């Protein structure tokens, strides 16, 4: 039955003999473990292709949605975080294996006549691999992505003559990164590069078959077959690579920062680890020489890589005797490692936690301060004694539906909740704040209502009682006279904030904020509250 099906397939398509032909290719007797890297690189590409398509099923490629859709993939979908991990770490591991593959070919001198074209196509594929890294870096649209890409496009703009045109091609006229740049990076990442990669991979493989796998120098022994021994070696190497990838995808969290904020001047951009050496080279050249580091040196290096088979045209010799090639690789590796280590050591730590976008932010930290204060008034007046939250009691459950009563009615009700009940001790402004709250509360308010910690609520009441919102914006509410207070903890130490209230001008010269003399309890409450409101 199975045999019949195979026969039918062979008769109609020739697929069976094609596979046979592929597997039983003659390879040199000297082939072995050193030649497995090409297969691993191919598998790495296929894995990226597969996981990339899976991500695209749930990813919306526009600055408005990209971040939220990625967050949705990672936090809401089964295996979403794993698939993003495979794609993210797969990119890094693919770069490693591609570079190792090229290094092996270089060390063994396998680029020599007649295999120059195979080498050239391979060089283009290396550049493609880096281009995937560069364009993919923008797609999460968090601060890392945004600011990293700002630097990249600025570097491209320095190219002599072509600079402005490259910038226009990147959709970044004038240097801004917006919807157009995003669309272009995405199109390059998922359309242009994959199509060209598949095409060049096909040419690369056809050339490998045409010229055969390169034998080591002095290998005149009879040829052997690709299958099964070398195929097994390739498979084992691929499996090891894949095991490392899966382990990383499961065990190492892929960073996701906060959504890209072009107005955030505190973020320190840095590229992915494999570009750090370039980043460091930039620091070595200053002023008018900067272009040497950003454009000239990288261009020369790429050119030299392409020219390798035309510079080194000597006969094949044993790899151990290729001292020149070995020293070059050693020098390159040392230089790369040194620059990368220096870059890591000299870049100050980011002000933003690299997983800031994955942390759950409690509802009370996101609602306007007057709403949190209103929750405080509700608790202080013991309104919850009758208005049970989330269940029906002797009075309506205020979390089920917003109150439909007019504000005047509500204020009157607060003053005299029920015959014989004690009247509220709140002042007129506080009563109005509470009345507005019960008629307009949203989902986050309800969650905060149920579980906001009392110290934070106390802080919000101090904030509200002292009319801080007259001059400061916090969680979208207030006036823009003084600095906005979201993310204060990222900018100021707790003691600075605490001491600042009593004498603002001393800590911020030129500040027009009046001094506030809080009692120690209120001071702790408002400081603690402000330090916990995220950016």
């Amino acid at each position, binding site marked *: 039955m199975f045999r019949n099906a195979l026969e039918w397939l062979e008769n109609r398509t020739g697929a069976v003999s094609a596979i046979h032909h592929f597997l039983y290719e003659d390879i040199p007797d000297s082939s072995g473990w050193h030649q497995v890297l090409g297969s691993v690189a191919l598998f790495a590409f296929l894995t990226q292709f597969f996981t990339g398509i899976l991500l695209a099923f749930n990813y919306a490629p526009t600055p408005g949605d990209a971040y939220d859709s990625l967050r949705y993939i990672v936090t*809401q979908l089964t*295996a979403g975080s794993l698939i993003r991990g495979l794609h993210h770490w797969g990119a890094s591991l693919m770069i490693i294996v591609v570079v190792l593959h090229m290094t092996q070919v270089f060390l063994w001198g396998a680029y020599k006549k007649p295999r120059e074209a195979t080498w050239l196509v391979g060089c283009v594929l290396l550049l493609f691999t880096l281009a995937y890294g560069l364009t993919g870096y923008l797609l999460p649209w968090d601060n890392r992505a945004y600011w990293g890409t700002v630097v990249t496009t600025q570097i491209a703009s320095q190219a002599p003559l072509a600079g402005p045109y490259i910038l226009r091609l990147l959709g970044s006229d004038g240097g801004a990164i917006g919807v157009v740049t995003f669309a272009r990076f995405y199109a390059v990442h998922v359309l242009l590069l994959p199509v060209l990669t598949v095409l060049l991979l096909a040419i690369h493989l056809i050339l490998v078959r045409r010229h055969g796998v390169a034998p080591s120098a002095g290998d005149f022994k009879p040829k052997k077959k690709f299958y099964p021994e070398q195929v097994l070696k390739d498979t*084992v190497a691929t499996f090891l690579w894949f095991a490392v990838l899966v382990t990383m995808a499961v065990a190492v969290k892929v960073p996701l920062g906060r959504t890209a904020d072009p107005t955030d001047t505190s973020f320190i951009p840095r590229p992915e680890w494999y570009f750090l050496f370039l980043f460091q080279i930039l620091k070595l050249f200053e002023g008018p020489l900067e272009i040497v580091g950003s454009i000239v040196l990288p261009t020369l290096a790429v050119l030299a890589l392409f020219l390798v088979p035309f510079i080194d045209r000597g006969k094949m010799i044993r790899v151990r005797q290729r001292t020149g090639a070995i020293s070059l690789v050693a020098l390159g590796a040392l230089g790369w490692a040194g620059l990368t280590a220096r870059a890591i050591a000299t870049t100050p730590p980011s002000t933003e936690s690299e997983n800031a976008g994955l942390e759950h932010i409690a509802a009370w930290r996101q609602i306007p301060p007057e709403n949190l204060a209103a929750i405080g008034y509700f608790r202080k007046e013991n309104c919850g004694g009758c208005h049970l939250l989330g269940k029906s009691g002797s009075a309506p459950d205020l979390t089920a539906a917003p109150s439909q009563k007019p504000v005047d009615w509500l204020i009157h009700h607060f003053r005299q909740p029920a015959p014989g009940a004690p009247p509220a001790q709140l002042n007129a402004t506080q009563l109005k704040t509470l009345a507005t709250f019960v008629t307009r509360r949203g*989902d986050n308010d309800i969650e905060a209502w149920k579980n906001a910690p009392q110290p934070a609520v106390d802080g919000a009441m101090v904030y509200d009682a002292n009319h801080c919102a007259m001059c400061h914006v916090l969680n979208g509410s207030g006036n823009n006279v003084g600095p906005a207070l979201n993310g204060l903890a990222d900018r100021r130490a707790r003691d600075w904030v605490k001491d600042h209230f009593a004498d603002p001008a001393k800590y911020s010269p030129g500040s027009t904020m009046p001094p506030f003399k809080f009692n120690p309890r209120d001071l702790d409450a408002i400081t603690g509250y402000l330090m916990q409101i995220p950016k």
Partner: protein
Amino acid sequence: MDNQDTSRRGFYSLLINALSGLMGLALAVPAVAYLLSKPKAGKSPDWVDAADVNTLAAGEPREVVFLRSRVDGWRVLNEKATAWVVKMDPQNVVAYSPSCTHLGCAYHWDDQAKQFVCPCHASIFSIDGKVLAGPAPRPLDRYLTRVDNGKLLISPTIQKS
């Protein structure tokens, strides 16, 4: 080819297939889970205020428009939605989802015939939602409803009959 060589080759093929199979599985299983499992439940929809019960006449269906928030992937949409509301008695109001249970067309109330009629494939439903004729496979779907203080509240979760 001697026997030892054949069994060595057999062992190699087995290893190649096993390792490739493992890798394929490690990619396929998460992919299937990712594509076929439901997203983790977001917030359950709130009760929304849809109509004043006193303005509804008993036994006369009315199409009401209400605002609801709906989770659409990574977005929460605030959108208009409609329901066919019928007051059975002052404490019992039902709200039907406005889509025919056959293929999702919008149906309407035929006041003359006193029945719901779907224009697409002529499904006909009685005022209590039962299928009277046509290809509809089940009675009209309902929203959860509640009457509170004279207000009709709707929870926009569809309850299939």
